[in-house]
């Protein structure tokens, strides 16, 4: 190509985006690891060397020992809480997508749902857990999953509804000019336009689902799961074990966040032109 109109754009854009982040990539990775190590060392210093820590703050070494010793049971409880979070996240997401689709297609549905969603968004959902547990039986995980689902529903619904309204006039004109059917327009334009919004909603919802499922365990239900264990061992003074369970909770949150963040990044790779 000898056209004068072809500047080497891709290189330029790569360079600016790298510069915009400011730090070299190895430092962005190493920096938080160093911060974490410093905190753990300071923690060991305060608890084990200086011995000035309060009773509920055990040494990281003691926590690590409990984590290894009770790995089996901690893993089982982690799986229970993670499953509740995942079931809630999926159920909430599916319901949110369907309802957002209906609201985007029919204005009256939007009018009906908007105040309802606003109401749900301001109610502290986990506070409903005792009621749900009573309704569905104290031995069922359903109450916890329902709480996670409701918490996940809100951000997914709001983002998908917004995403479904992001098609640009020039694209709509183009598809009409191409004689596309309504379904084809939905498939090649509306849906792909909404996808990044869905995944942003999903990322926000994933953290909310994990937090809700875990906190819901403090409000009763079956005697398993990370939250139940943390509450039990904190009350009975086994601080190191309680903290070992906290590590399990962090692991769940981290996995959910990383997976959904990765999905979101894949979907938002292409900036609009």
């Amino acid at each position, binding site marked *: 190509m000898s*056209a*004068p109109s072809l500047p080497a*754009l891709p290189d330029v854009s790569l360079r600016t985006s790298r510069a915009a982040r400011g730090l070299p990539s190895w430092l962005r990775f190493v920096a938080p690891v160093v911060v974490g190590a410093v905190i753990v060392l300071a923690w060991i210093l305060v608890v084990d060397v200086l011995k000035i820590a309060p009773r509920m703050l055990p040494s990281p070494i003691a926590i690590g020992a409990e984590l290894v010793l009770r790995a089996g049971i901690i893993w089982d409880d982690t799986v229970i809480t993670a499953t509740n979070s995942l079931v809630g996240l999926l159920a909430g997401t599916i319901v949110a997508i369907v309802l957002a689709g209906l609201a985007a297609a029919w204005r009256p549905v939007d009018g009906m749902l908007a105040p309802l969603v606003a109401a749900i968004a301001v109610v502290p959902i986990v506070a409903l857990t005792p009621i749900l547990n009573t309704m569905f039986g104290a031995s069922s995980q359903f109450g916890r999953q329902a709480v996670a689902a409701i918490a996940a529903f809100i951000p997914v619904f709001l983002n998908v509804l917004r995403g479904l309204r992001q098609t640009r006039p020039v694209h709509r004109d*183009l598809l009409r000019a*191409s*004689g596309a059917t309504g379904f084809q327009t939905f498939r090649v*334009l509306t849906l792909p336009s909404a996808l990044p919004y869905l995944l942003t909603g999903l990322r926000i919802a994933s953290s909310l689902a994990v937090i809700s499922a875990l906190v819901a365990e403090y409000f009763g239900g079956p005697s398993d799961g990370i939250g139940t264990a943390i509450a039990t061992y904190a009350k009975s003074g086994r601080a190191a074990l309680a903290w070992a369970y906290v590590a399990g909770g962090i692991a769940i949150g981290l996995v959910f966040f990383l997976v959904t963040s990765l999905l979101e990044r894949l979907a938002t790779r292409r900036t609009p*032109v």
Partner: protein
Amino acid sequence: MTPTDETRGATAPAPAVRARGVGKTFAATGGEVLALTGVDLEVAAGEFVSLIGPSGCGKSTLLRLVADLDQASAGELEVFGKTPQKARVDQDYGIAFQQAGLLPWRTVAGNISLPLELHRMGRAERDERVAQLAGLVGLSEFVDRYPDQLSGGMQQRVAIARALAENPRLLLMDEPFGALDEMTREYLQSELARIASETGAAVVFVTHSIPEAVYLSDRVVVMSPRPGRITDVIETGFGEERPEGLRESEAYFAKVTAVREALHGSPVERANER
């Protein structure tokens, strides 16, 4: 393309566009806007016609009526002897706008092949056609790029290739080079002149630029606003070819002057432009 062949076989081929007394009013807040009135225009098959005029004189509106993106409120409008709606469904025209309007999540090839996919062309045939179109607009090496990796001029070339995908007999273009720098613009004008003569398609080309209209067109249609209407039609008479020297020729300058005078004809319009 069967309906095409039927029409071609007829003794008097239908013109690409025939407008008689076409008008368009938009319902707007605080009354109606008369965007277009009494438009009579015939664009022959294979002819290159530019619409030029100040902002708001209804150029885009006229193009959108032809494309069946809006409906005329008065008069008769035919595209190859059919209603605009039938012509749109039959894919008799291809269209390009000032914004390239590429789908950012599709590659260059994916964008060019979009109309072909919508009309269920087979995979192999489609790939072949896309390669051919990419070559036509000089983007063969860029088919796997995404739109955000292309310059504005390259994006616009993708849009033109996409408009040509179905081999339309009519190309509708609304200021396609309006957002480009002068160098790219002149380069793409030459490319478009070549493509138009190679494909034999009629072109209705909206522009703000007098030199652009003169260089490209067989006829320049001059419009004026409030209400939007056609005030003058100027034939360039340059013939098929657009040789390098045309932009510097006497004949070219004479036509530029003629169009400029037609545009600035009435003192009212001059006041509007200030």
